[in-house]
Structures are given as C-alpha cells and as structure tokens.
C-alpha cells in the first residue's frame, strides 16, 4: 500500500521538487516563467467563466421565457409533488441497488470463468470452450430487453414444478446472463494483451500453467481492464431499471405507478435524478482511473 502510493506521488511530483543535496532556489528565469504561467492560467479561468455564464445564461433565459414553460414545469418539475412521492421511488431504488450488487458479483465471477475457459488451451476443455464461445456470441448480440422478456415470461410459461416464478429472481437472472457475456469479452481481451513473453518467462521459472495465470497473467490483465469494467458497472446500474417491464417494483416501476395515478411526469424525473446521483460520480471516477492507467501505460518504457 505504502509502496503503491509512493510510486504515484513520485509521478505527480513536479520536477522542481528534485533535490540533489545542495540548497537550490529557482533562478530569475524560472521565477519569471512561473509568473507568466500563473498569469496565463488566471486569464484562461476568467475566459472560461465568462463564456459559460453567457452561453448557459442565454439558454436558461430562452427556456424560462418560452410560452410552454409553465405547463412544462407543472408536468415534469412539480418539486413539491416530487418530494412527496420520493420515499416510494427510493424504496423502489433499493431493489435496483440490491440487484446491482447481486448481479454485479455473479457477473464478475461468471465472466471471469468464461474468459479463462475461452483463453485456455487445455484439450480436455474443448467442448466447454465451444459452448462458451457460442454463449458469448449469442448473448452479446441480443437486446437485453428481449432476454429479460424471454426469461421473465418464458420460464414461468414452461410451468415446471420447482422452478421459480418470482419475477425479481428471473429478472436478475436475465441481467446476469447478458452482462456475463459482455464482461467475459472484456476480461478475455485483457488476458490477450498480456505479452506471450511474460508467459514464457513465468514458465521458464518453473511456474505451472495455473500458477502463471494466477500470479503473472491475471493480475496484469485485470489491472488493465478495470476501467472498462467500471464502465460496464455504470451501465449495469441503469440497466437494472429494465426489469421493471416484468412488474418488479424498482425505481422505474414505482415512478410509473405514481405517474399513472396523477398523469404528472415528475416521478419519472425524480427516478432519473436518483440514477444520475449514483452513476455520474461513478463515471467521473472511472474517467479518472482510465486517464491514470493511460498515463501509467505510457510511463512504462521511458526508463
């Protein structure tokens, strides 16, 4: 842990902090340069603020003064009503959250298993490898909504004893089926980017096939695919809303029920805001990770 942070802080440190033992203070030229840079940054910030204020202000003004604004506000943004029904939607959102956690964990495990299967070369696993390939091809190519409908309505229609008719369970299953296919591909691509020479080096050290995978290939592969996997997590969170079509009372369904009662669309907007409150921070964080990993990859080889 301490090692890791030491490494990143190294990179972040500006070159001026290097100290070669002697007492160093910036030269005239460097001071002038810093002064000029600061002035330029100040000017950039000012321009950004001014142009944002103008553009966004104008847009807002146009919206508010337009003839339909009153009706629009009453139909979509009736905040008092929105806060009144907020608890119901939040209660629904706990279903989305639970579903995300359960599906996310299962998807990670199943996706990893499929990726390992597809990249293995063991002859004994050949039939499973073929099945895995077919599985990924099929479920990456079908709209998830269709999978949800097929699983959610299709399985109960079989009327097999012992099989669940619980729409929440079936909906979750459908989400897991689809996302496992996506995630398996992401992880597989990560495994393929680890250079074969790494494998050769590990094998020549006497590590077994499994040890090579466990200690050398997977750690590098998973580190590389973490950002795209986080991307998939964001997508998963919002896609859990799709199970509402089966009648599961999640945030989307809860909003729909309210809207049907009053013909006011504020509940939908409230649900949207709740999703955004979770997904936007996660997206920002993912972006940062992506940028960091890009910089890290580019730092390699400079030595």
């Amino acid at each position, binding site marked *: 842990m301490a*090692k890791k942070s030491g*490494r990143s802080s190294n990179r972040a440190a500006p070159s001026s902090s290097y100290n070669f033992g002697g007492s160093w203070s910036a030269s005239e030229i460097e001071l002038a340069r810093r002064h000029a840079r600061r002035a330029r940054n100040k000017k950039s910030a000012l321009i950004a603020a001014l142009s944002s204020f103008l553009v966004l202000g104008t847009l807002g003004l146009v919206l508010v003064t337009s003839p339909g604004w009153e009706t629009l506000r009453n139909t979509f943004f009736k905040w008092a009503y929105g806060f009144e029904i907020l608890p119901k939607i939040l209660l629904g959102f706990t279903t989305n959250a639970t579903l995300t956690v359960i599906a996310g964990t299962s998807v990670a495990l199943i996706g990893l298993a499929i990726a390992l299967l597809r990249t293995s070369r063991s002859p004994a696993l050949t039939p499973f490898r073929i099945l895995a390939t077919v599985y990924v091809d099929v479920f990456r190519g079908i709209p998830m909504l269709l999978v949800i409908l097929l699983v959610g309505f299709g399985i109960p229609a079989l009327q097999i004893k012992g099989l669940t008719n619980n729409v929440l369970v079936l909906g979750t299953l459908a989400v897991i089926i689809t996302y496992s296919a996506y995630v398996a591909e992401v992880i597989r691509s990560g495994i393929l980017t680890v250079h074969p*020479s*790494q494998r*050769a*080096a*590990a*094998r*020549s*050290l*006497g*590590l*077994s096939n499994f*040890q090579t995978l466990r*200690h*050398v290939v997977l*750690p*590098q592969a998973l*580190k590389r695919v973490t950002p795209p996997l986080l991307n998939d997590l964001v997508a998963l969170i919002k896609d859990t809303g799709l199970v509402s079509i089966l009648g599961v009372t999640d945030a989307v369904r809860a909003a729909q029920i309210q809207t049907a009662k009053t013909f006011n669309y504020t509940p939908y907007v409230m649900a949207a805001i709740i999703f955004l409150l979770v997904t936007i921070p996660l997206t920002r964080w993912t972006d940062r990770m992506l940028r960091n990993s890009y910089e890290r990859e580019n*730092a*390699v*080889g*400079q*030595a």
Partner: protein
Amino acid sequence: MSQAVLQLEKVRKSFGSEVVLEDISFKVLEHKATVFIGASGSGKSTLLRCINLLDQIDDGQILLDGQDISAANVNPDEVRKKLGMVFQSFNLFPHMTVLENVILAPTKVQKVAKEKAIDEALELLDKFGLREKADQYPDRLSGGQQQRVAIIRSLARHPRLLLLDEITSALDPVLVNEVLSTVRDLKSEGMTMVLATHEMGFAKQVADELCYLHQGRILEWGDPSKVLQSPKKKETKEFLRRLHQAGRL
C-alpha cells in the same frame, strides 16, 4: 571425466517446412560455459528455447544430468526447476517489485518459506549491487538494472544450468558492461552456462567452448580464440569479417 550437465544428440527442430535446427550435438561439462554465435535467424534463441522445453524438438535427444528430458513422459515443469533462463527482453513482471519478482519462483515453485526466500533474495541483490532497488517496480529501473534483476531472478532458484539468450542486445554499450561483468562473476563462481551472444570480446572471455551456428547447424566449434582468430570454414570467416566491419569485434 565428469558427466556432462547438458548433452544434445542430433537435435532437429523445424517450424512448418522451415528447418531451424539440424544435427545439433554438443556437451556442456560442469562449471563450463558454451557460447553460441551466429547471424540473426541462425537459430540461437530456438536452441535455448528447446533446451528449456519451451519449444518441442522434432528429432534427437536432450540429456540433462544424463536424464533424457526430451522423452515424452517428462514433465516440463519439473525440468525447468533445474534450469534458469534469461531473455533478451528481460521479461520482468511489471506488476511486481524487484523483490517480488525474485522470490516468486522460490516461494511458489520450490515452496521455500517466504522469510527465507526474502533473506536469500536480498543477499543476492546485495551481492550484485541492487539491494536498494528491492522495493522498486521494474519500469523505474534502467535496462541494465532490469537485466541484472532478471539474472538474479533465475539465480534465486539455484539452477543447475543457466541459459542466457542475447542478454545484452537490448542495452546501450555502457549498460552492456555492467551486465557482462555480472555474468563473468557467475562464471568464476562455477555456474554452468549456455549463452547466445553478439558480443565477441565477451564470448572470448567467458567461453570454454565457442560454437558458430550457421543456418541451424553448428559449423565450427572449439577453443574460442582459435575459432575467432583462425576460423576454418569460409562461412565463419565471412561472418567474422562482417562483424569486424560493423565494429563489433
């Protein structure tokens, strides 16, 4: 006379229709170093990879301490425990520190206790002047340092035989020397080695036997100064002349 650590008998290797090694026979005695020279593509890397069982030979036999390691029922993992290999491109594991790189095989393959492995690793790093780099990641090291760590990594397993494949060709001349002096130290300690190299001066210093590989065959072999100074075959002469022109002799 002691038994050979490594012995190859009429080894042949091809990739598809391209024959890369043909009729390769030689012996390496304990504490001795055999050096292979030859043009790019002559099959040096392939030869070392075959000895390490990373590539499968098509014909012939490879004996390690008298045991036929090219037999069908041999477990490559068991054989590789006795061999150390260092590659042209270092191949350190980028997600592990120098120390973690070095103790990986001892702890996972030889099942040495972690504390003991760390002690031994630090001792080795110390010996080769890399002690203070133990907690660094490989991308923070110079090429020469990385290659020395790669050598130490394969030494930590106490190999019976060390295979070194053009370990200096990715380095600039200054760094080459630090790596070569490491190898010289190993040689003087009695390590048995097979090397492929483009550094003729170095080859002359460490080699007990020098083999000139030409299009997959050992064309000329023997005492290094003899092969280098008075080659018999015209191909060897031509190769050495070209090296001379390139200023590498």
